[in-house]
């Protein structure tokens, strides 16, 4: 099985084959290596590859894998190219303001129909005693406010659409 593996702007072609000792893995057509891959704690894996020992954290995060290598996180997707065609292209969400931080909406600074300039503060979300003032992602009109003051929001939640 060969996967198309994407990390940000970088794409690798990675072949994987199960063996008695673990997996035979080849990257971008280079000679495959034997990889010994063991689960230790519930989401920590031990890798032995080319004699080197690595410990990585591994979580499934929607269609992606969230991989922690000694405190540095990597968001990676691995797709079987044969299935890739089946995927739908997502719509553009350039004007949609999302929160990276989970928390609670403390203040709305705009109302639907208001005109805003890119960079203008439009909403304040708070978590852990810190207020995060979020700015309009683009020039435009407030089309849709999807949250209200006091509401709890998860990481990644859509807040306000500017068009």
């Amino acid at each position, binding site marked *: 099985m060969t996967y198309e*593996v994407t990390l940000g702007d970088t794409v690798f072609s990675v072949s994987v084959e199960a063996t008695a000792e673990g997996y035979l893995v080849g990257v971008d057509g280079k000679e495959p290596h034997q990889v010994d*891959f063991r689960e230790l*704690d519930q989401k920590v894996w031990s890798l032995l590859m080319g004699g080197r020992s690595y410990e990585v954290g591994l979580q499934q995060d929607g269609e992606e894998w969230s991989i922690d290598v000694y405190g540095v996180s990597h968001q990676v997707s691995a797709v079987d190219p044969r299935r890739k065609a089946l995927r739908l292209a997502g719509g553009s969400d350039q004007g949609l303001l999302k929160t*990276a931080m*989970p*928390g609670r909406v403390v203040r709305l600074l705009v109302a639907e129909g208001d005109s805003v300039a890119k960079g203008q503060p439009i909403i304040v979300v708070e978590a*852990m005693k*810190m207020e995060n003032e979020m700015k309009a992602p683009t020039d435009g009109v407030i089309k849709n406010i999807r949250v209200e003051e006091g509401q709890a929001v998860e990481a990644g939640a859509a807040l306000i659409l500017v068009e």
Partner: protein
Amino acid sequence: MSLSTISRVLIANRGEIAVRVVRACAELGIETVAVFSEPDREALHVRLATMAIPIGPANPSESYLNGEKLIRLGLEAGCDAVHPGYGFLSENADFARAVTNSGMVWIGPSPEAIEAMGSKTGARTIMEAAGVPVVPGTLGPSKDFEALAAKANDIGFPIMLKASAGGGGKGMRLVQSMDELERAWDAARSEAAKSFGDDTVYLEKAIICPRHVEVQVLADTHGNVIHLHERDCSVQRRHQKVIEETPCPVLQEDTRQAMCAVAVQAAKAVDYVGAGTVEFLLGDDGSFYFLEMNTRLQVEHPITEMVTGVDLAKAQIWVAMGHPLKWSQEDIEVTGHAMEFRIYAEDPSAGFLPAPGLIQVYREPCGPWIRVDSGVYAGFEVPIHYDPMIAKLVIWGRTRDECIERSDRALREYRIVGIKTPIAFFRHVLKNEEFRSGVYNTSFVTRELLDEVKGEQNPELAAVVAAIAQYRSDHAPKAKGKAAEAESMWKKDARFRGVRRWS
């Protein structure tokens, strides 16, 4: 003066500092009563305390800031003393007074000392009267925006807004121009109200790029006051300390002595009792300005403990009982070098944005001269309601260089999966030449350092891991959706481990 008995302590706090107090009490043979809000039922301080009592909903004002309820529950549980930790009600004079009036011992300075030093503006007056230089700025805190704006115009931008009752960077804002002032003022007041139950804010001239150096003091009820040398807290983000070290690598011996003497003088000026910290801004030329006095145990107290061998939390309880200090100034010697790294649930690559959530994997570093003061464990959900600091990594070395190399080793071992933390960022700081030289200031945490962290990725390794993970997921025996697959794979492995036992 007669001694007070302390046999059961109510801990009016949560997180790692509540755990720290549980440990100090346990070593003294004293029972502890933890309180917990709804999301904290399974928190570490609840697990480790002798007793544990629910205190109310998540919102701090209904739980950890509810002084009346805390006192009532403490009395009902048979407590004879209250330890406030830091933050929450620790610098609230009214609470200290109410505790004392209830008949319980307050483990901290007198309400009068808290009032004198707790109001940043009042403390400035006292220190100015004593001839200690302070940062220029307004003296009277104001709730009137127009007056504040006029004063800001007088002093000239940039200015710093600070919560009058504050500390720890909460309710603090650096303001570059008049345009930004009103929004900053709103935000600072809102944060101050939430953090300290008091929205009074004052302003002072912003001193750009100073070092932040503070002195630990310890005082008893018999008039003895000693200092335990300084801590350097110049590595900050969002006005909040992230790395502290002691000794301060650039402090000249004569400045150190002068600063420590001023700190003892400040404590004596208010008849201080217990552990306290006097904070200063240190200029390039060795001049220093009084900033404020924190009238409680400081977050970064462990680095002082590591170099002096004095257990400050136990010393607080000892003097609260009315005992004289066990040590005179001559008994306090500094050996080696110590650093503290604050492990926050936050994402350095997203501007240190808070990142609460479920901790999936949590493995602390161990071995020689590594100390972790933590409030969490694997399986604990870090609540969104409280401070993002989940643990403190404290390292001792015989020299500063050894401390740095040991810190790097410890950070490499620290494994947290499920929430974002600054662990990788800290390893970058340790490699930075400016930090290694010791000559850095409060503007040190820059965008460049954060970009370097992103550059440290190992994309090929991550690609291999993702491909294997995807392969396992695609070839898992029973497909019930991805999450179920991951779970079942894990169980299969766990069972395999069990079976393999006799092979």
